[in-house]
């Protein structure tokens, strides 16, 4: 019996293998530069050009530039990685033109890395090798900790850090594959070998053979490679990354987002080929169900169940839609995935189309993401040209095609019924559900809508099995979740962790804690539909139910860190202003409710709050929650209710004492110059937009309180801490 799909897949991998082989990277020095919106903003395009110039000038043929998407380490961009064959890659942060020159002449030409500018530098020593010990819960075992033992052994034998460095890492996801045995996984770099260690003898052998002699220990090699092997190989030494478990983001910062060959070389389309070869859509659905994959767009509905519902419909004209509207103002996971690993999302959609029996699929992407749109279009074009989209995909007889539709700046269009109307070319106003889109969606036909990240997990689940994925998460929710960490946190960026990880680990261990040495006040999750988790609850595990119980929601993955400098009433007002502006106006409780709630919040921050305002806020919020038509109105009061729940005192201070504890609400503060501290440098006076600061040179200055508009400029510019905000 001929099996067209495996044959097709074989020829695809041959093609990719040949293209990769022709590049001969094994014998070349690779300079890797990120290319996604954040990187471009930080100047990565100029950097890449500069490297190109240097390479040309040097006349060397053994140096290449490799473009990748975004690693998610936003605050350190542009990041450049230099990979010399057989060595650990060296990554530089905040690279500028001068540094390009130094990296090129000192590191590439002179073999001496510019250690001062290494990403998240912890030491000046560049090690020959690195061993990453998994610290995940399933690799922990009773008795002495292997990592501590190994470090002690190194000490006993006086093996220094130039020889080997030991790193702790989060779950590799290998526990699910090789499961059962009480053992710890260790990844050796740069050899990219995963070892499975269960005794002290194993550990000794690893040291004596692998580390000291450079001979891999065959006996201890794990059966399967970790899913994010290539990612860990490049970034495993950096704490920000090795505390993460990357599945959805496994290729981000690794693959060239515009190269089908590279994606295929990373096992791309293997899952699709298996799915098509089995000719059994129910198998896909059952694996997703076993995986306990829950929608990453916010609702957390089981993806397996949703696909199963669509599949059962009598109507056989069906559609599948990828929701790339990413409306939460303060979230950017979906953008990053679309820009950095577009083929993976496309593969997830084709698999979804096959599972539910759809003929056409749509990407709905917000117009504010031009690069994401461009990369997805390129991926679609490549797939069409290679028989992965269109008629008879991979020789399986399955016909399916994809197209892009653009959003146009309306938050409510992220809601599924509104999104459908927008694709139909209408105003994006939600409709009453039921009927649900799986019954009657786009043009009245059964339609599945899923979030970008949901699709990003599909190929991984089919390749490594649903059980594997389920084991990584919690009892109720399988796998990982990507968060966009931003706000008052040291390391902003994208963080992917197993569900069930504590908030504190995300914010402190990975995010490096609150910036500026301030105190953590709260963590906001779920954007305008979510709420606040106070600092006192930071040990909570992230999962759908615990977050909801605390008055917030998981949402799509926005995570904003707030410090003691942030006023909770002000932030609640910010979200309410957002919801009020984005309300589509179709139903009264949402349209009027958000307006009224906003008025009250404004009044409170202006110092005109009344004692009964808290009650009013409660009543209006409940009404809005209960009687609005769609999720926007129903969730809009969440930030208000959760801030009242956890920060009631702050509201009371505003209302009764006309005082803003965070000193944020402009109407409730004023600026004063402390005469004893002021040296009369005149800087403040020169920076005051309304020229209300007076005083002679070298004499104490004064602010005319009547004229002051409280812009805070003077406070920011005074270098002598002579201005007080009260």
């Amino acid at each position, binding site marked *: 019996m001929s099996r067209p799909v495996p044959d097709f897949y074989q020829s695809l991998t041959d093609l990719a293998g040949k293209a990769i082989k022709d590049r001969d990277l094994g014998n070349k020095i690779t300079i890797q530069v990120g290319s996604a919106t954040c990187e471009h903003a930080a100047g990565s395009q100029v950097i890449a050009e500069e490297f190109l110039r240097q390479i040309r000038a040097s006349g060397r043929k053994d140096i290449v530039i490799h473009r990748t998407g975004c690693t998610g380490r936003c605050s350190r961009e542009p990041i450049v990685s230099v990979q010399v064959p057989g060595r650990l890659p060296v990554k530089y942060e905040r690279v500028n033109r001068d540094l390009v020159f130094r990296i090129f002449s000192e590191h590439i030409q002179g073999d001496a890395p510019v250690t001062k500018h290494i990403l998240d530098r912890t030491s000046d020593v560049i090690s020959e090798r690195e061993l990453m010990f998994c610290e995940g819960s399933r690799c922990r075992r009773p008795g002495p900790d292997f990592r501590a033992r190994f470090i002690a052994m190194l000490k006993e034998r006086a093996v220094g850090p130039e020889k080997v460095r030991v790193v702790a890492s989060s779950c590799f996801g290998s526990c699910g594959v090789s499961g059962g045995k009480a053992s710890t996984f260790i990844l050796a770099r740069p050899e990219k070998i995963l070892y499975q260690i269960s005794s002290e003898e194993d550990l000794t052998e690893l040291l004596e053979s692998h580390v000291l002699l450079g001979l891999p220990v065959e006996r201890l090699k794990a059966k399967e490679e970790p899913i994010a092997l290539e990612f860990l190989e490049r970034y495993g030494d950096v704490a920000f990354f090795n505390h993460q478990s990357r599945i959805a983001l496994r290729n981000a910062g690794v693959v060239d987002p515009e190269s089908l060959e590279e994606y295929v070389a990373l096992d791309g389309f293997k899952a699709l080929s298996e799915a098509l070869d089995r000719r059994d859509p129910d198998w896909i659905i059952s694996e997703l169900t076993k995986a306990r994959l829950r929608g990453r767009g916010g609702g957390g509905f089981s993806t397996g169940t949703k696909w199963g519902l669509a599949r059962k419909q009598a109507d056989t004209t069906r559609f599948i839609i990828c929701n790339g509207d990413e409306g939460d103002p*303060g979230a950017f996971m979906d953008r990053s995935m679309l820009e950095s690993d577009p083929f993976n999302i496309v593969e997830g959609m084709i698999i979804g189309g096959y599972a539910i029996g759809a003929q056409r699929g749509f990407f709905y992407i917000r117009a504010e993401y031009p690069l994401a749109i461009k990369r997805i279009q390129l991926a679609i074009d490549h797939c069409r040209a290679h028989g992965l989209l269109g008629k008879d995909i991979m020789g399986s007889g399955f016909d399916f095609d994809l197209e892009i539709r653009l959003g146009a700046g309306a938050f409510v269009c992220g809601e599924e019924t509104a999104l459908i109307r927008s694709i139909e070319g*209408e105003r994006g106003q939600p409709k009453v559900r039921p009927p649900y889109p799986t019954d009657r969606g786009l043009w009245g036909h059964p339609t599945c809508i899923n979030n970008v990240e949901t699709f990003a997990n599909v190929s991984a689940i089919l390749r490594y099995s649903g059980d594997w994925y389920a084991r990584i998460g919690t009892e109720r929710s399988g796998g990982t979740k990507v968060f966009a960490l931003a706000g008052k946190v040291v390391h902003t960026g994208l963080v992917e962790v197993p569900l069930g990880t504590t908030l504190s680990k995300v914010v402190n261990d990975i995010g490096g804690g609150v910036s500026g040495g301030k105190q953590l006040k709260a963590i906001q999750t779920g954007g305008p539909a979510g709420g606040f988790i106070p600092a006192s609850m930071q040990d909570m595990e992230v999962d759908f139910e615990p977050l909801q119980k605390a008055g917030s929601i998981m949402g799509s993955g926005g995570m904003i860190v707030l410090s003691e400098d942030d006023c909770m009433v002000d932030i609640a007002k910010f979200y309410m202003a957002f919801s009020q502006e984005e309300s*589509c106006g179709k139903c009264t409780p949402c349209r009027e409710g958000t307006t009224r709630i906003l008025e009250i919040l404004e009044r409170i921050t202006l110092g005109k709050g009344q004692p009964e305002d808290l009650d009013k806020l409660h009543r209006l919020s409940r009404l809005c929650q209960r009687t609005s038509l769609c999720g926007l109105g129903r969730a809009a009061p969440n930030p208000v209710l959760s801030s009242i729940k956890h920060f009631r005192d702050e509201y009371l201070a505003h209302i009764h004492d006309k005082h803003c504890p965070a000193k944020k609400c402009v109407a409730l503060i004023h600026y004063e110059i402390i005469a004893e501290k002021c040296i009369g440098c005149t800087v403040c006076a020169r920076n005051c937009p309304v020229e209300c600061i007076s005083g002679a040179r070298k004499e104490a200055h004064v602010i005319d309180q009547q004229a002051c508009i409280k812009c805070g400029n003077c406070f920011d510019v005074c270098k002598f801490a002579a201005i007080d905000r009260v």
Partner: protein
Amino acid sequence: MSACCSSTDNWPELERGYRAMLPEDILAFIDENRQMDRSESMLIATLHMIQGHYGHLGPGHLEAVAQLMQVPLAKVTGVATFYHYFRLQPRGKYLINVCLGTACYVKGAEKVAQKLMDELGIRYGETSKDGIFSLESTRCVGTCGLAPVIMIGDEVHGPLTPGQVPTLLDSYLARAAEDLAAASAPEAR
């Protein structure tokens, strides 16, 4: 009012007039879509193309789209006004979009916005007198890691302090002046 027009006597003449209002590629796009099922679903895509070409959607554009796509004008206007991304007024050479998303807000976006307004002497929705800058606000451009950010044209800048605003604006003014010089001295090219 739309479907009727193709049958009125002077339709060819009207059509010629409407076609003259749009560039070739957009006309080709509309013609191609009209052959498709559910062509009206391409309305938003068509408006995106027009805004991409002209920078805004003028009343004439909306009417031409309605006529050529055979969609009621009320629907075209309804869609164009519903979506914030569509602008119905012309704008300056460079559109400055201040991000007022959460990450940017908590990192002080309002101060940057205030500085922009002070420097340019305009408020949101307005265009500077020299026609170079227009100011708008947006909710998250997806680079929250660099907050606070602003977008000028297609380029994202961040993290920004109010103090950096004047230099940044100057660099765009210089660019505009260069373009102008290049345009008035084409032989130099």
